[in-house]
């Protein structure tokens, strides 16, 4: 599953066509969802599949497919210095994090059965974190209204 996750991530950035990139992103998100299952977090895994793959990936896929025109898919090949800089930055980040992880004693911990259930999550959300939930609902509503207002086509005048 780690291979699916990391491979999908690479495909999403390196695929020639943007559509294949979107599909690669969906694959990567699905891989992360299976990792959540392995971590005894089925609720988060299902939420990830429903929201990320069901909504975000499909939204991106439809946007890419519906607005498939020249300027959309046009990708300037980055300068080779940029690519080298990107690879160096990525490798540096990965190596630093990996060495830090391997040097710590994180590998001694194996996944134990944390008994966090739906009930625990529900209790947390509906008691201590209820204000967060309400603000989140406001943020979601505001973002949807904002997205609609931004992408509204004014029939007579100009866009937006």
């Amino acid at each position, binding site marked *: 599953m780690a291979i699916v996750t990391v491979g999908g991530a690479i495909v999403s950035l390196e695929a020639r066509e*943007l559509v294949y990139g979107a599909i690669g992103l969906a694959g990567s998100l699905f891989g992360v969802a299976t990792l959540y299952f392995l971590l005894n977090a089925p609720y988060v895994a299902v939420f990830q599949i429903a929201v*990320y793959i069901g909504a975000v990936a499909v939204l991106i896929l439809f946007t890419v497919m519906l607005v498939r025109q020249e*300027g959309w898919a046009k990708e300037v090949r980055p300068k080779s210095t940029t690519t080298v800089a990107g690879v160096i930055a990525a490798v540096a980040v990965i190596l630093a*994090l990996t060495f830090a992880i*391997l040097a710590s004693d994180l590998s001694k911990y194996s*996944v134990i059965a944390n008994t966090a259930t739906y009930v625990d*999550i529900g209790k947390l959300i509906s008691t201590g974190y209820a204000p967060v939930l309400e603000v989140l609902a406001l943020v979601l509503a505001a973002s949807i209204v904002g997205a609609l207002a931004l992408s509204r086509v004014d029939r007579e005048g100009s866009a937006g």
Partner: protein
Amino acid sequence: MNSLSDFVVVSALLFGIGVYGLVTKRNAMRLLFAVELMINAANLNFVAFNQYLPYQEASNALGQTVVLFSIALAAAEAAVILAIVIVAYRLRNDIDVSEMKTLEG
């Protein structure tokens, strides 16, 4: 795949790939992909470390709850970014971020 370090290493890989995408890509959609990958790397860490919280009735599922909020926020963010990209495309016929200089100081 059963020690904590495995999951954290996968998360580090995802984050590194996201960094690579942010540095090299100039297409706004690719940048969105890279940001989503980095958000997922962070979420994976939250859920992985949540397994090792000392068991308490009150905070047993704290990491998972945080990730639920984070996923909802990421969905809102993706919707807004897509709207901005569509508007930018409509105005400029192009979604190359290195050419968007209207707001540059």
